[in-house]
């Protein structure tokens, strides 16, 4: 089914996207997914584990390629891009927040944020200042020189959010951002994501938790690789 954007210009456009793994037996992780994501939207996709929501997010984040259909990001048909062109686009336009945080254990919070600049070509001279500002925007101004092992789970995820938005991406992709957090920390993280949305950032968040999904402006359900309407 076709799900048009809820208004404004469209950043991402998926048309009849399918993703099949293996051949014998073939696993259809995504089936005929079509979706428009409007600029400035906050979309959550809810589904149980194995429903294909991570596959969908990986395709939107250019970490994976669909086996059928087309995906247009900022009016660029990304299925035609080479590996390194896709890497460049990831660096420039996409921010990721993972359930497992993926912070480098031996680097301080500010160094972890600065890592995002390595591949996106940000200028070196104000790198630390910009990273500090990003950490301030997630409420971690007093944790700049802390290594991850000295941070709580919620703080680690906020460092990850700072790293994701540090390069001013067009699209922020959140994969179960509260999955490893207790309720209170999760709420804080969702508030931070909400504040990012308030600055105009387009956000796609996948989760299995309806309460978490409720924070988003727009909700979609995915079951067995097929996208459905609002839950």
């Amino acid at each position, binding site marked *: 089914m076709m799900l048009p954007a809820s208004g404004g210009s469209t950043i991402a456009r998926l048309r009849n996207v399918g993703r099949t793994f293996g051949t014998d037996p073939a696993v259809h992780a995504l089936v005929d997914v079509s979706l428009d994501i409007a600029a400035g939207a906050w979309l959550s996709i809810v589904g149980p584990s194995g429903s294909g929501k991570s596959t969908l997010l990986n395709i939107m984040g250019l970490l994976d390629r669909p086996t059928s259909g087309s995906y247009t990001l900022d009016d660029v048909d990304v299925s035609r891009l080479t590996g390194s062109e896709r*890497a460049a686009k990831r*660096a420039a336009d996409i921010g990721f927040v*993972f359930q497992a945080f993926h912070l480098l254990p*031996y680097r301080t919070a500010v160094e972890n944020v600065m890592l*995002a600049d*390595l591949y996106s070509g940000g200028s*070196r001279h104000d790198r630390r200042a910009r990273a500090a500002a990003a950490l301030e925007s997630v409420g971690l101004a007093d944790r700049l020189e802390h290594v991850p092992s000295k941070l709580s789970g919620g703080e680690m995820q906020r460092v990850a959010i700072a790293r994701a938005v540090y390069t001013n991406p067009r699209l922020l992709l959140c994969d179960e951002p509260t999955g490893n957090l207790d309720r209170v920390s999760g709420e804080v993280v969702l508030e931070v994501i909400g504040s990012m949305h308030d600055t105009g950032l387009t956000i796609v968040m996948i989760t299995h938790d309806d309460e978490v999904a409720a924070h988003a402006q727009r909700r979609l359900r995915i079951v067995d690789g097929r996208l459905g309407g609002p839950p």
Partner: protein
Amino acid sequence: MTGRRRHRLSFIDLAGEVLAGLLARPGRTALTVLGTVIGLAALVATVGLSQTAGNRIVGRFDELAATEIRISSRPPASEGEDTSIPWDAPARMQSLNGVVTAASVSTVDTGGALVSTSPVRDPARRTDLNLSVLAASPTLFDTVHARLLVGRYFDEQHSRRAERVALLGATAAERLGVASLDELSAVRIGDELFLVAGIVGTVDRQFDILGAVVIPEGTARSLYHLAQPETVIVETRIGANALIAKQARPALRPDNPSVLEVAVPAEPRRVRDAVQSDLNLLFVVLGLVALVVGAIGIANVTLVSVMERTGEIGLRRSLGATKVHIATQFLLESSTMGLIGGILGAAIGTSVIVSVALVQTWTPVLNLAVPFAAPVVGALIGLLAGLFPALRAASLEPVEALRSTT
């Protein structure tokens, strides 16, 4: 701000990442580097020690061999050709600039006469010995650096008057039972009686003197009809060897230089190379084995590191790193470990050479290229060792890598 920004990893950023990666686990990095350190230290030290030891051996060769020339006559090409060396050969050679001393020495044909100390033949006990008899110019003892145990050398006067005097080599004297000259000692060569003037204890060249009876040339001429000197031994100044070798034949036989043969010892340089290549081979093989072990160590640890950092690799890919970025980072990490190993190995190896030389009071000798080559070799080994792990890291699929929780 879309995809227009430059997309390349600057070298400074990359170097920073490599350094941070190595320093994240300093203990492990140090242990990994240790293999290369040991390998290259062993290689530098063994090459240096063999050069140092080789230099010492050559030092001895140089002193004697590089200052010695022997002249003899070749067999006559045709009946009646005069190939003889003149009797005044030592004097002629000594007049050349660059000659220290010169002497002539010949084996005397005594017609099979035996040498003994007793005039009485004792059938029960064998006192007659078959010793070689040498005839020499009085300068011989200087030329071979002889040192006397007792007595004195014969001189020009003894030779001119064909006196029956003889010097005994230390071994010959021992066999004959002559220990001192307190009583007037004499030896009998066949039926001719010779007064023993002295006993030669040691020589530096022409070692057959020690087992022989040496009589003056003049005596040999009149008594045994010695026709011509057999060999002329020349000691030259250091560096004059080649020159004197060239001048010897025209100096002794200006009429027909080609009848003489001049023997010059092998070039010192060649001697040195021959000695060192033998010594080096074993040492170099040992060092190479240590290096291979070091390389395997780096490869192993880099591979473990890649597996441990799978999550980090996934993250970097999600941040926009290409496969080349990932491979470059791991290759540079392994090369840096090899480079550090090479620098430390060169320093330690050089210290070992200097220490050993100090203890042995040798002069430390080391080709300067060796300690500078060690870091280059180390880096290359690191690069090779990192090749497989780096390719493996680059080939990880970002989605798979991100699933790792590390």
